[in-house]
């Protein structure tokens, strides 16, 4: 009896697997090889590795690989992409380290029938990238600054710690911070933007110099890049200063611990996992020729591109520090389950 029940279960397993596969959206195995390529080494992109592995498994894709250029240089990223193309990769999720410069490579991919998506950051229009899936950086910086102003009681002086100056998103973030400050009608003033703090040694030197010289004049810090968020959280802890409010970006453990211990008011979560996971899913559909991007899809228009999808952002604070990962998962699932009907035209 037990044996026949076991056999029945074995017979049912493939059907069960198919049901599970269908339920996550992969109707059949594909032969596509998808590459997820950041602009260079950076901890922000670490979740892409897991996203690639999960997408490969969940959507039955032949290969989804996370490939990192050795340095943040356009030529190294281009060489890596070209090398992967010759190795048979036919779908590319790219973070454009250079928003304009990457377009030549994306055109080369398009001429080889290899679709590309801009992930986590956008390529500048006109571009052959199918669309851009990333954080609405302007909105994220704006909401983060608003949260900071609220934590400061609506008045005071703030400093903006920004990332690489060559990244066009940095300018957008600076504009967003200025907008939120302007809306206070003079109650909050922006002392300065400190930029190029997206490398650990530079961030440590600049942020500590700022705190050393002006900590008594500063009431709040808004960090809109990963490394300065971490360094600012660490520096405020070393200083033992809970008066200066900090709102950072991303969910590094050091920043989360700072929120728990009162050294940071919050941090703006982005959704790198979702970007990688959904990106691989869409690239598989495009590379298979099953789907095309709908011409009339309801994309968001940004200063960089007319085809933008927000991958989600939310403020992590003491209120939701235990549950924000579930919130991000829900955002990812919502986007993935609706992306086909909203943005794609499929056979």
């Amino acid at each position, binding site marked *: 009896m037990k044996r026949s029940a076991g056999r029945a279960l074995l017979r049912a397993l493939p059907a069960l697997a198919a049901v599970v596969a269908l339920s996550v959206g992969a109707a059949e195995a594909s032969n596509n090889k998808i590459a997820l390529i950041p602009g260079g*080494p*950076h*901890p922000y992109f670490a979740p892409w590795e897991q996203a690639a592995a999960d997408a490969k498994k969940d959507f039955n894709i032949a290969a989804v690989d996370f490939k990192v250029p050795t340095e943040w240089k356009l030529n190294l990223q281009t060489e890596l992409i070209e090398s992967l193309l010759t190795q048979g990769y036919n779908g590319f999720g790219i973070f454009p380290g250079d928003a304009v410069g990457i377009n030549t490579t994306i055109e080369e991919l398009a001429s080889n029938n290899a679709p590309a998506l801009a992930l986590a950051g956008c390529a500048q229009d006109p571009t052959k990238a199918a669309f851009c899936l990333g954080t609405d950086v302007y909105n994220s910086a704006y909401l983060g600054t608003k949260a900071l102003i609220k934590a400061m009681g609506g008045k005071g002086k703030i400093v903006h710690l920004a990332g690489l100056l060559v990244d066009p998103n940095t300018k957008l973030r600076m504009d967003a911070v200025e907008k939120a400050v302007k809306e206070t009608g003079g109650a909050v003033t922006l002392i300065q933007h400190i930029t190029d703090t997206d490398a650990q040694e530079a961030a440590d030197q600049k942020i500590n*110099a700022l705190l*050393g010289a002006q900590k008594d004049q500063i009431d709040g810090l808004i960090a809109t890049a990963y490394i300065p968020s971490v360094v600012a959280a660490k520096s405020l802890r070393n200083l033992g200063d809970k008066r200066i409010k900090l709102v950072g970006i991303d969910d590094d453990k050091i920043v989360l611990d700072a929120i728990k211990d009162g050294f940071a008011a919050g941090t703006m979560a982005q959704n790198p996992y979702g970007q990688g996971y959904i990106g691989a899913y869409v690239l598989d559909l495009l590379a298979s020729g099953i789907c095309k991007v709908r011409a009339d899809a309801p994309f968001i228009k940004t200063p960089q591109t007319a085809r933008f999808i927000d991958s989600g952002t939310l403020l992590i604070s003491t209120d939701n520090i235990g549950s924000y990962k579930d919130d991000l998962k829900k955002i990812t699932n919502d986007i993935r389950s609706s992306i086909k009907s909203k943005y794609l035209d499929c056979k």
Partner: protein
Amino acid sequence: MLAVAIAIGFVILSLLSPAFLTEYNLYVMLRSFCVVLVVAFAQMLTLAVGQLNLAIGALGGLVAIAVGGMMEKLGFPISAAVGLGLLIGLGGGLANGLLTVRTGINGFIITLATASVFTGINLGVTESIPFYNLPGPFVAFGVGRFFAVPYLLIPPVLAALLLALFLARTAPGRYLLAVGGNAHAAELSGIPRDRIIVLAHALSGLLAAIGAILAEAQLGSAQPTIGADWLVMSFAAPIIGGAALTGGHISVAATALAVVLVVLIQNGMVLAKVDPYWVQFLLGALILAAVGLNRLRAVRVEAA
């Protein structure tokens, strides 16, 4: 001259910002001073023998991730990991020196190539992912201080004293300058030229390793990018301090003063709220001005 420039800088910055002379800001500046000082010494030693070391930052990065990996992944005690890290630095420098003298190829080319090798190993081992979980006492050393004096300052000060003693009071120290001043004459007077060049590179590697370990303690994590932006400072400080690129003339004290000046300039950039898009330009221009002024002084001294 340097001391005067530093004094003027101090006065201007304290007038610009009352917080400049606070205990915490002095601590921050002294902390910035630590890594730059040993990195400058590392370059200064190769300049002494008329060579260049372009691999300082790359070797520093390799040592940083090696020490971090040994502590975090292999569970080595701090002393063992630091000791082995110093040996890696010494070994890397030794390799640079041996390759330079054995092949007869200029150290510029050799260290350009080994820099790529060191960076390659670094990235191959770490895949660009830092080691974050370093032992508590190691990280505590990086942020600890006695009033305005960071504990991190102890190794660079010891290194400076030992280096000054080595250059002034020991035969190999004096040979370094002799080889840099006139290699042929030094050889004729019985100084083992090749061995001295190897020694300069080896000590340079050792100092780069000290800089890397200090940077690691300061940052609280072993970042593969440690050392990536050391090169400009490594040349700027000894040259502002009057070192001759052709070799034979270096000064520990003047290099240390030059590092103080560079740190002041960097600190001043933040205090003066310089437009972010012009920071890099102004930093370069100020360093150029400092080098130019020092050169002018040297020319006047020679003329007199």
